[in-house]
């Protein structure tokens, strides 16, 4: 890129920073003499001072197009110091001679100065690629939201309010999902049909049928619809929908005549094949196409001729920038809990109890008590390796809600909850547990293996009271099973259509369990609510709002700049599938090689060619590192990487080379440098955008240049931002190890997982590795000393020399 030849007019400027005299082990006179051979050097006491920054501003405004290299603190530190100037367009190439050199080395001035010179040379010769490529093209302003429950509807309403067009796809005829269908919900003990409003009035909420946010002009609702296929790429998806006809038109006045003549039952409990739901209101009535016999009686009787059997299914295709999965969860099927006697009289689920409670309330008002003794069994089929291993999170609260309701209606009823653990962690939840105990609900720690029945068919629950360490035999009139939740029907199929991952329990897998709760493994496809695991309404509401702003950010980030995407050199690509299988983002596809492209000699005309989609590529470099033909160019080219290794190791007798990822590992190493945790000068560090960029070739090249050992420092285990950078690096390290062993020059190779908390120990790691690479026998005393230093690391880790910056 930049030539050091004097003939070129663009001689780089190097700004040498002495960091206010804290770099005493660097001889700046000598350093300047070395650098000024191929660059103009300007020295400064500390460039981040007001005077220094003013000087920088002048240089920037002069704008002579020359490369500016700042030799001083680490890129992270410099970026903060020069934040304002950088925001105004200052572009500095940073040569870290402070945290990466002076602060971490001893008093051997000649050696430390030599290393600083190498660092500056490397920065001049092989600068980082500019991050000024437009990496996100236009994105469609439409969002397809799959699922019209609380999560999907609220997210859809908020997105419409933000100015996006929304296509809301609901499998059923009615919006509202599971929450609207159940009776009262915890922790508020009212109905589950409200949504927060999106209007200006803070704190207001309204029912599904009254909430005008749903009737937004930019919110199109596709009822009785499912997603058939999805194609395209992030920002521009084509989603094809299949819509079943409703058969009942808007003319319906909800008189109910049809229901009185209908002879078929719906697959939904307690309903006829033509039925209504009270909570949506936009569509009054529908026909269950699964069970309808199409006898036509309802159509004959309908006084307003609102029933139209001539309607047929239709397909539509919508174009969308983003897709939201909000398909929710549903009660676990019988097979997970039939071992507890389900199917026999006297055993029901909490869902069924909820349906019975309305009738029981009526009985209570007549002074009748339907059952005398009731036992609830928690974790029925849940947290069980043989059934559902996960915790469904809602069942404890549902049991408490029902138990309190029962004790309120029937104070004389004996209610026992057999539990494994009561999980009541939520705002206000603990009070429910307290209220239940106060109400006289018995809590029995222990879960039965089965429910037996006596000769009268009455349930017998034999269970160990674990806290009392003795067995109890309960003879309730009714056993209520607190069963778990599973992903909604067809979640598996939908995730395959959307090419997103599922977790071990079958729910949609979120991208990152700590930071990315609403993103999926596919870019542009989002998730919220119980589709990603059972959740209470408060969490569902929170996630719906979160995902709406997440999608808004995604759709409006078009035109954002970053480093350039990787590119395939057609003249070298042989069309194998290594890159396309390795790419963590599915950005690489193999296409039929166009006739006009150059090709390697061995490739025939009908060969394949790898093509990288610049929109999906995140420039991690994993493909470039793994390409067996070295046919992929990353913005940090192989030439630059080889060059950095060569420059950094030049003139060092037994260098130790460390490749590190600039993210978490970079944070650990940079912070360790700020603590001035020392290691030998022969350790030469090379920064990478991701550890996945390193290939076996780079490691072997380091060995060829005389390296005594190579370590790779990546991010914490399983936390690579590019998902598989560390695994790719591990494979490459293994290959390099085999190659080196086969050539009779085995080398110590190590891969570390680091994050910012490792700032306390990474210095020691480097020291120990350097000693190992040096062949130094690690004595017990050395190790003990190192351990002692680590122990004392709370303050500072250095030996306490004059330059020691204790307390910094």
């Amino acid at each position, binding site marked *: 890129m930049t030539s050091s030849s004097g003939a070129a007019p663009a001689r780089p400027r190097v700004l040498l920073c002495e960091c206010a005299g804290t770099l005493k082990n660097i001889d700046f006179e000598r350093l300047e003499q070395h650098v000024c051979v191929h660059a103009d050097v300007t020295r400064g006491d500390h460039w981040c001072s007001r005077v220094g920054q003013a000087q920088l501003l002048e240089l920037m405004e002069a704008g002579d197009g020359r490369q500016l290299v700042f030799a001083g603190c680490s890129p992270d530190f410099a970026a903060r110091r020069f934040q304002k100037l950088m925001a105004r367009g200052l572009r500095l190439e940073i040569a870290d001679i402070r945290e990466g050199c002076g602060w971490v080395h001893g008093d051997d001035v000649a050696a430390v100065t030599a290393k600083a010179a190498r660092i500056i040379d490397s920065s001049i010769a092989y600068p980082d690629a500019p991050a000024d490529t437009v990496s996100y093209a236009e994105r469609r302003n439409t969002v397809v939201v799959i699922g019209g429950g609380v999560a999907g509807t609220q997210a859809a309403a908020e997105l419409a309010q933000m100015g996006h067009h929304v296509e809301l796809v609901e499998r059923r005829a009615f919006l509202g999902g599971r929450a609207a269908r159940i009776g009262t919900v915890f922790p508020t003990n009212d109905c589950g049909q409200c949504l927060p409003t999106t209007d200006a009035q803070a704190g207001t909420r309204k029912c599904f049928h009254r909430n005008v946010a749903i009737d937004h002009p930019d919110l199109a609702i596709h009822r009785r619809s499912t997603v058939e296929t999805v194609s395209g790429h992030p920002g521009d998806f084509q989603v094809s929908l299949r819509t079943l006809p409703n058969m009942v038109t808007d003319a319906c006045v909800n008189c109910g005549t049809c229901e009185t003549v209908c002879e078929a039952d719906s697959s939904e409990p307690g309903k006829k094949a033509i039925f209504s739901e009270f909570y949506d209101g936009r569509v009054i009535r529908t026909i269950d196409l699964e069970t309808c016999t199409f006898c036509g009686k309802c159509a004959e009787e309908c006084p307003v001729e609102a029933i139209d059997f001539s309607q047929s299914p239709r397909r539509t295709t919508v174009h969308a920038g983003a897709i939201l999965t909000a398909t929710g969860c549903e009660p676990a099927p019988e097979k997970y809990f039939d071992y507890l006697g389900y199917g026999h009289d006297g055993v029901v689920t909490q869902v069924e109890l909820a349906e019975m409670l309305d009738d029981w309330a009526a009985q209570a008002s007549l002074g009748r008590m339907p059952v005398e003794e009731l036992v609830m069994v928690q*974790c029925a089929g849940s947290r*069980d*390796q043989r059934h559902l291993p996960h915790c469904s999170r809602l069942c404890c609260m549902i049991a408490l809600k029902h138990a309190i309701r029962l004790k309120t209606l029937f104070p004389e009823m004996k209610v026992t909850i057999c539990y494994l653990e009561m999980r009541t962690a939520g705002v206000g939840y603990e009070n429910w547990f307290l209220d239940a105990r106060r109400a006289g609900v018995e809590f029995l720690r*222990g879960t039965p*293996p089965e429910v037996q029945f006596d000769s009268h068919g009455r349930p017998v629950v034999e269970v*160990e009271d674990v806290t009392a360490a003795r067995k109890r035999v309960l003879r309730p009139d009714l056993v209520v099973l607190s069963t778990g939740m599973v992903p909604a029907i067809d979640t598996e199929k939908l995730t395959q259509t959307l090419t997103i991952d599922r977790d071990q329990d079958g729910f949609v897998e979120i991208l990152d369990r700590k930071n990315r709760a609403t993103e999926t493994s596919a870019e542009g496809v989002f998730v919220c609510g119980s589709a990603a695991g059972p959740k209470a309404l408060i969490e569902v509401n929170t996630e719906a709002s979160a995902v709406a702003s997440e999608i808004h950010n995604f759709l409006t980030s078009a035109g954002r700049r970053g480093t350039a995407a990787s590119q395939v050199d057609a003249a070298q690509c042989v069309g194998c599938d290594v890159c396309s299988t390795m790419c963590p983002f599915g950005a690489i596809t193999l296409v039929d090689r166009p006739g006009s492209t150059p090709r390697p000699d061995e490739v025939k005309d009908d060969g394949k060619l790898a093509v990288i989609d610049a929109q999906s590529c995140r420039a991690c470099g994993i493909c470039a590192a793994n390409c067996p033909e070295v046919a992929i160019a990353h913005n940090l080219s192989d030439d630059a990487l080889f060059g950095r290794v060569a420059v950094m190791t030049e003139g060092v007798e037994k260098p130790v080379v460390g490749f590190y990822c600039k993210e978490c590992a970079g944070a650990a190493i940079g912070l360790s440098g700020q603590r001035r945790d020392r290691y030998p000068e022969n350790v030469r560090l090379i920064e990478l955008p991701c550890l996945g960029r390193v290939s076996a070739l780079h490691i072997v090249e380091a060995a060829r240049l005389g390296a005594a050992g190579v370590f790779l420092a990546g991010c914490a285990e399983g936390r690579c931002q590019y998902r598989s950078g560390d695994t790719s690096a591990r494979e490459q390290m293994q290959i390099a190890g085999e190659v080196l062993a086969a050539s009779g020059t085995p080398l110590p190779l190590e891969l570390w997982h680091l994050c910012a908390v490792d700032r306390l120990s990474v210095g020691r790691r480097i020291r120990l590795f350097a000693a190992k690479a040096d062949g130094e026998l690690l004595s017990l005393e050395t190790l003990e000393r190192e351990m002692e230093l680590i122990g004392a690391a709370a303050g500072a880790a250095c030996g306490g020399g004059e330059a020691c910056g204790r307390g910094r």
Partner: protein
Amino acid sequence: MAVAADTDAYPQAVIDEFKLLADECSICYQCGTCTSSCPSGRELYRGPRRLVRLILAGEIEAVLKSDDLWRCTECGTCTEVCRMDIDVAAVLSRLRKIEREHGGAISCPERTAADVAAARLRRHPRIDNMQFGVAMMAKGHFPKDKVGAAETGIKIAKQMLPRRRKRPAGEAGPASEGVATLPFYAGCALPQDHELHALVHEVAAGFGVRLDEAADAGCCGHPSRGAVASHYASAERVYTACPACDASLEEAGVEAVPLWDALTARAGRSPAMALRAAAPAFVPYVGCLADRDAALAALGEAAEQAGVTMEVDYPTLHNGCCGALGGMYRGATKAGARLLEFAAEKHAPVVTTCVLCRDNLHSAARELKIDVPVHFWPEFFRAEEHVSEERTDD
């Protein structure tokens, strides 16, 4: 409890084994499902859950000195129901092994019963209930509480010891004991299988025994127990065809003896009578927790008299409870599979002392597609034909 003092007292091998056990059990929720499912000694037994907790707490002494170790019948139900797929029955089995090798401090009827059976089985794979009972008495165990197998063992010994006299070689015993009428309680399952029911009568007749049956024999958990008790008010004891009946009648205050024990003993006493077996070898299946050791002993005695081999693999001695106590088939158990595979390997039929065991194991064999015949005691054993025609009053 002083954990340190505990561990000091045990050799490193024991401490290491406990560490291994603790590792395997570390995922235990302490949900109590295992103890809830355990059918052994409902009143006394505190169950596997507590033992697992003690393992996790490092309370070696408390574990090894616990009577509970020996109340386990290794029926395998706890393993079947465990949420976390811990092989609880195997954990208890290993604890007993440790106790046998390194403990020895504990003395309880259950342990003695298990010890005697195990020791005899180690010497030769045939045991007879007589000597078992004698050994029990020699150890001075006359427990007042009801503890299943151990008590039955003693009861049998007490009942049979005075009649058992060593006959000097050559001295002829009574040619025949004639026909005896024994009060017989058929239980719930046998009368439903008419063919088998008739066979029991026929085989008993072969031994010179007429069975007097109560008309309203019901299930062990059935209220008809009272009726049975009144029907046999004058009888010294009632004979049964099912160990669960046996235990339940005992609970209701009626002394019960397995019919097979009586028939075996009868053949043993009479030189003119001999047991005949349908095959040269068999594998015993005594899944039932109610009477395991005694029933095994009776089968061993029968094997010896018939001159056939009882093939016993130690783990299958305590093979699985088929779930018969509830009277219904609940699917093949891991322990059942282990037993059937062993029988298939030995090319021997399985012989049970209980019709429910037979039916359930039969279903398991079918489900597992293991081709092994499963016989009820009277389907496998009968008296040799040359019964003397001489009749005397009993």
